[in-house]
């Protein structure tokens, strides 16, 4: 079974989001997390290191949120199935699970395929979908600019060997992380956004004609089987863990 339709996969991911978000006990999220992790490490062949790196921001958010729930005397963020350490555990597992579902979708779904499916099958405006896709390209560019700025700043550190090993290491790590770099990166991002917007228009992103549905993935038998099986698994997990 090789599901290829990005919209079918998106529907399954949304289904998983709903189950995990509504589940009142951490066990539901934990089971979904474990199943998905096994799928990613096994059939999808995603390296564990890549998964851990992708989960880092979710882990940060999960732990800071959990801490708020754990120590807050009267959390007012809504009824999530209790307060204190129970709520903290639920929030942590749920956030990590939502992160893994998102990450799994991104790592196993070609972005261009999703974009074409959204335009040609879901009827979303091409300008919005392709504009978002073009914007994704800015991120590595910004990361590279930040890296270069930090290398330049490291070269400019006054005396690179003064202050002991740890101090030198801290100074080198922190070099180039000042507020000026934010302005520089922002200016670069705006320049890129202008260029990308013009590039999209010049290449007819919203031209008068109907764009060709080229290499658009269709909903096929494997996608149907994947959707049904995933639905059944999610339902089983929900029933077994909610009680």
């Amino acid at each position, binding site marked *: 079974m090789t599901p290829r339709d990005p919209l079918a996969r998106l529907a399954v991911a949304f289904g998983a989001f709903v189950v995990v978000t509504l589940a009142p006990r951490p066990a539901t999220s934990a089971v979904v997390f474990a199943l998905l992790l096994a799928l990613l490490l096994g059939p999808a062949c995603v390296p564990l290191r890549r998964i851990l790196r992708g989960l880092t921001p979710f882990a940060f958010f999960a732990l800071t949120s959990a801490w708020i729930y754990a120590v807050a005397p009267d959390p007012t963020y809504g009824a999530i199935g209790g307060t204190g350490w129970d709520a903290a555990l639920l929030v942590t597992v749920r956030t990590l699970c939502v992160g893994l579902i998102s990450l799994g979708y991104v790592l196993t779904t*070609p*972005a*261009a395929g999703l974009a074409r499916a959204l335009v040609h099958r879901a009827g979303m405006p091409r300008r919005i979908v*392709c504009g978002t*896709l*073009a914007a*994704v*390209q*800015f991120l*590595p*560019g910004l990361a590279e*600019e930040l890296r*270069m*700025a930090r*290398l*330049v*700043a*490291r*070269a*400019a*550190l*006054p*005396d*690179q*060997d003064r202050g002991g090993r740890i101090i030198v290491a801290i100074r080198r790590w922190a070099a180039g992380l*000042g507020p*000026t*770099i934010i*302005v*520089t990166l922002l*200016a*670069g991002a705006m*320049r*890129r*956004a*202008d*260029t*990308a*917007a*013009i*590039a*999209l*228009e*010049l*290449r*007819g*992103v919203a*031209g*008068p*004609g*109907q*764009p*060709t*549905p*080229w*290499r658009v993935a269709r909903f096929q038998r494997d996608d149907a089987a994947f959707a049904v099986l995933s639905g059944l698994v999610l339902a089983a997990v929900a029933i077994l863990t909610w009680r």
Partner: protein
Amino acid sequence: MPPDRALAGRDLTVRFAGAARAALDRIDVDLAAGSVLGVLGPSGSGKSTLIAALLGVIPELVPATAGGTVAWGDGAFAPPSLAAGRAAAAVVQQDPDGALVALAVADEIAFGLESDGLPAAEIDARVAAALASGPAAGLLPDAETLALSGGWRQRLAWAAALALRRPVLLLDEPFAHLDPQAASVASDAIRTARAAGTATLLVEHRADLVAGLADQLLVLDAAGRPLLRGPAAQVLAEAAERRGACGLRLPAAVLVAAALRRAGLLPEDAHPADAAALIAALGPRCQDPAVAAVTARALDQQPRAMATPGPVRVALGDATVRRGGTTILSGVDLTVCDGTILGIAGSNGAGKTTLGLLLAGGLRPSAGQRCAPPGPAPLVVPQNPALAFASGSLREEARRRGVDWAAAATRISAAGLPADPDRNPLRFSQGERRRLAVALAAAGGASRLILLDEPQAGLDGPSLAALTADLLALRRDGHAVVVVAHDLDWLASLADDLAILAAGRIALAGPVAEVVGRILDGTAPVPVPPGLALAAALGVVPLKDAP
């Protein structure tokens, strides 16, 4: 109307809000099918603005007051419109970082074809053809565009434009990020398109690249007005006679021909635009010592004062740099002394920038050694010069670098920039920021080691001459200067030592005369640059140091 007209523009004028003068002032453009029109001019002369005005990008996407009319093919003259421009022309934009719109190579090429509504089978065929030959040959269809180097991204932008098979091709500094080999492939693509009847408008700083391609040239002045217009060889000869007044970086053959004409060694009516034409025009006089002497002066290949190397500023011993499991540099042995200029050259992705940053101390070797005596921090001017500034005003930036403001202001003014102490460095244009960074370096300060990464990119003739003078002044003052650049002709005229990188290793390094000799022998892994080739053909022994 000429029967083969592909594009014509009349009285094209653009004025940006708040600007003291028009960016483009009453420009006429005529482009015939199967011809190439080169547009040259100094920085800020409105070359890129001309393309934007023809396409209707100004004022439809970029707000400005625009005037004039455009006719595509045999259509009537009308105010420029984005819809008409898009239908008639394919464009290669100046900045490949923002100009790619898809995440995979095949998707990038197919994007415009999908927009055109071509049948899927035709799109498949054109994508396959684009990847089989031309600038993007060798790229895999599923390769991620995000993982491509700047040079390959520009090559992909070329392929995507050519695949559209529009009657007009508009190219905005399309060679800016290409190494000499890639530039040669791109030049061939223009010739192929011309043979197929495509009309090409080529905006470029480097007249040497345009000279061999363009049938006609239009030179704009600094105020966005037409300065020279006509057949390429004639216009270049006229520009050479004006000696820098046009603000162009002229081809070596044109400079030499002008000097030879002035010396009475070439007929007044001989206007060769490239080396082959010049050699043919000279005939048996090629071996004349007088021709060699004039050529040496014209190309700045005269015997010059030998560098007097000071103490070692930085040395690398068997240095290796790895990143994310990939070896970027390996086994590098290199020494830079005070009072010398080291030039680093090599193809796209060879590791030039990494080597520069390793020398400057921004990177530490994963293996091997970097030795530098204790002292003030080096100064780095990266490819994106905005990253070199860390202060909100020029005065503050000078203070941060330990430079007296009066000295800094003198240098900034000499570089042709306003020395306003309160002005934010980021408010200068890209080319101006580079000149600003070099001017601040030249003003003194504590740094003894100065690294510049592609400082010549995008500079017009006078700016390049000013930069060269500044770097030689730094060398004279005892600084150790490292310059990373694609332009071997320029590096050879500037540096004391050259290092040629290939695939992360130093393929060739040594005194400039020795390395140039190997390049001319054809035993170096780089093509012979046109200036050196011409010098050798006319009997100049390049770069022989005077005692």
